């Protein structure tokens, strides 16, 4: 039962092989059995059983969607009414969200059953899930390794079968990189495809929510429910959502794949490179053509990102001031003390680092040299992608330079950590959709293949991933101890 796809589970539920309540119980039980992964910040058992009961009623009436009765878990960045929404921070440890994020609202309406809220890097800032106030998440494939971040709890939970599927968010790779490290399928949609309302902002012009699932087929189902225009989000795009599942059976004959040479240069682990080459070879077998392309300014994506994202975050996180919600320091002497201590005591190191960086980059005298410059480079990188995607249908490359690194390895070297996001960050700057698809293993740890498509080409991406998953079984591997 734990290895069935969403579509299969939907059939099992309708065939009464299992009830939604039973399914929820199976997963709640598994979650209890595996506290070592530290995937969940909150397990919402009561809530889940209520939703499951309601789902069973719907199913009995022959109503509901493919997601009705399917156990899901949300990254703890999505506001869930009546449930703690911590964003992985001490700042929001006491924050019971008074409203639902649009994504949560949509999934509730689709009948999905929320098991709980998933661990993450604090305010989504991190690539290893080690910055969480609730402690690090472990990688189910190698407990000593990180699961990636910031949606590390989501990736580990889906990989270890502690949820059928999960939501994640991706600002600089936070869906794709943990998906790659945990051997699952993750999709970062085009910026604006999924509403950001109720998704606690890190860097508003880069943040995008998306599905984290075992397969492309599941991702299609989950994205279908998450995507769409939202009149509460000015940056969401008013464009019809295609039927993603219906687009999953297109031949790849003649599809052109671009391999950006900068993605395969220095710094890419040999094992990862070999795995990716094999994956590309599979695509050629499926009829796709391969061509080298270039993203000349790729390297500059890191400095540009680490100006833009911290700048936006420095303002986005100003609302956490101990006045209306969240953490407030004990006995503030005066207003200044209230602010500095509440924020100083409740934000972790990485968050502080980025707030400081952003504050500095926006301050008088530095704005042009850093912020404006970074925005110009953002344009150039975006143009690089546009040009490459004018030559080919999709781009392929690594998600990360290595497989999951050891816990503690990089936490004290922020720059090294930042550099490891080189292949994912550029995509966020351009706002393009991209996926991480399990493509094999290197040294016993999963390797993800990144597929980058044109704006709003999610359907094409999902099909390309699905075709690959029809002829490979990497996505069906289960980490030991979680079968």
């Amino acid at each position, binding site marked *: 039962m734990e290895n069935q796809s969403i579509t299969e589970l939907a059939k099992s539920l309708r065939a009464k092989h299992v009830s939604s309540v039973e399914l929820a119980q199976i997963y709640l039980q598994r979650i209890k059995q595996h506290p070592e992964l530290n995937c969940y910040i909150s397990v919402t058992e009561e809530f889940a059983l209520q939703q499951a009961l309601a789902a069973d009623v719907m199913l009995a009436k022959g109503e509901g969607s493919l997601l009705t009765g399917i156990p899901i878990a949300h990254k703890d960045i999505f506001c869930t009414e009546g449930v703690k929404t911590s964003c992985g921070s001490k700042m929001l440890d*006491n*924050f*019971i969200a*008074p409203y639902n994020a649009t994504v949560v609202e949509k999934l509730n309406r689709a009948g999905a059953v929320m098991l709980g809220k998933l661990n993450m890097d604090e305010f989504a800032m991190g690539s290893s899930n080690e910055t969480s106030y609730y402690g690090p998440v472990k990688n189910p494939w190698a407990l000593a390794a990180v699961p990636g971040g910031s949606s590390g709890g989501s990736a580990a939970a889906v990989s270890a079968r502690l949820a059928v599927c999960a939501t994640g968010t991706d600002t600089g790779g936070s869906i794709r990189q943990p998906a790659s490290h945990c051997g699952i399928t993750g999709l970062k949609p*085009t*910026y*604006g495809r999924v509403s950001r309302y109720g998704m606690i902002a890190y860097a508003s*012009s880069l943040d995008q929510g998306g599905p984290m699932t075992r397969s492309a087929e599941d991702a299609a189902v989950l994205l279908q429910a998450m995507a769409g225009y939202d*009149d509460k989000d*000015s*940056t969401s*795009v*008013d464009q019809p959502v295609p039927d993603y599942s219906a687009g999953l059976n297109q031949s790849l004959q003649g599809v052109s794949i671009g391999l950006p040479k900068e993605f395969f240069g220095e710094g890419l682990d040999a094992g990862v490179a070999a795995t990716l080459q094999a994956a590309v070879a599979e695509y050629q077998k499926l009829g796709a053509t391969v061509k080298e392309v270039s993203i000349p*300014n790729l*390297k*500059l994506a*890191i*400095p*540009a990102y*680490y*100006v833009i994202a911290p700048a936006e975050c*420095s303002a986005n996180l*100003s609302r956490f*001031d101990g*006045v*209306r*919600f969240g953490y*407030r320091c004990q006995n*503030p002497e*005066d*207003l200044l*003390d209230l602010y*500095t201590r509440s*924020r*100083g005591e409740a934000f972790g190191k990485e968050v*502080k*680092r980025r*707030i*400081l*960086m952003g*504050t*500095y980059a926006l*301050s008088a005298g530095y704005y042009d040299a*850093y912020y*404006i*410059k970074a*925005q*110009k*480079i953002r*344009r*150039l990188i*975006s143009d690089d992608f546009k040009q490459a995607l004018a030559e080919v249908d999709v781009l392929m490359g690594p998600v990360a330079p290595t497989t999951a690194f050891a816990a503690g390895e990089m936490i004290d070297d*922020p*720059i090294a950590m*930042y550099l490891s996001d080189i292949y994912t960050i550029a995509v966020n*700057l*351009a*706002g*393009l959709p991209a996926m991480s698809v399990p493509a094999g293993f290197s040294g016993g740890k999963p390797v993800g293949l990144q597929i980058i498509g044109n*704006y709003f080409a999610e359907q094409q991406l999902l099909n390309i991933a699905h075709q690959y998953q029809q002829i490979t079984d990497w996505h069906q591997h289960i980490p030991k101890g979680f079968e």
Partner: protein
Amino acid sequence: MSLTADDVKKIAHLARLGINPEDGVAYAKDLSDMLELMTQMAALDTEGVAPMAHPLDQAQRLRADLVTEADLRDKYQAIAPQVEAGLYLVPKVIE
């Protein structure tokens, strides 16, 4: 570009961010390293390039001027650190 612990103190004050004095040096080093990384940007000529604030070239959508929100004060203030008579309380504001 290299920052000192004193610079960090000033930036932290702008951001109303309490930093332990003993951590000032470490933050100064981290920020200096980040700024070092950013010097790469200066090398690229971006003359005439329009800054890009949003990934998509879209126009702001306008909402109709309608009151759609009900009074949810009790709900919102249930999660507030300190309230009285419907007001959020803070240390004395001096003008």
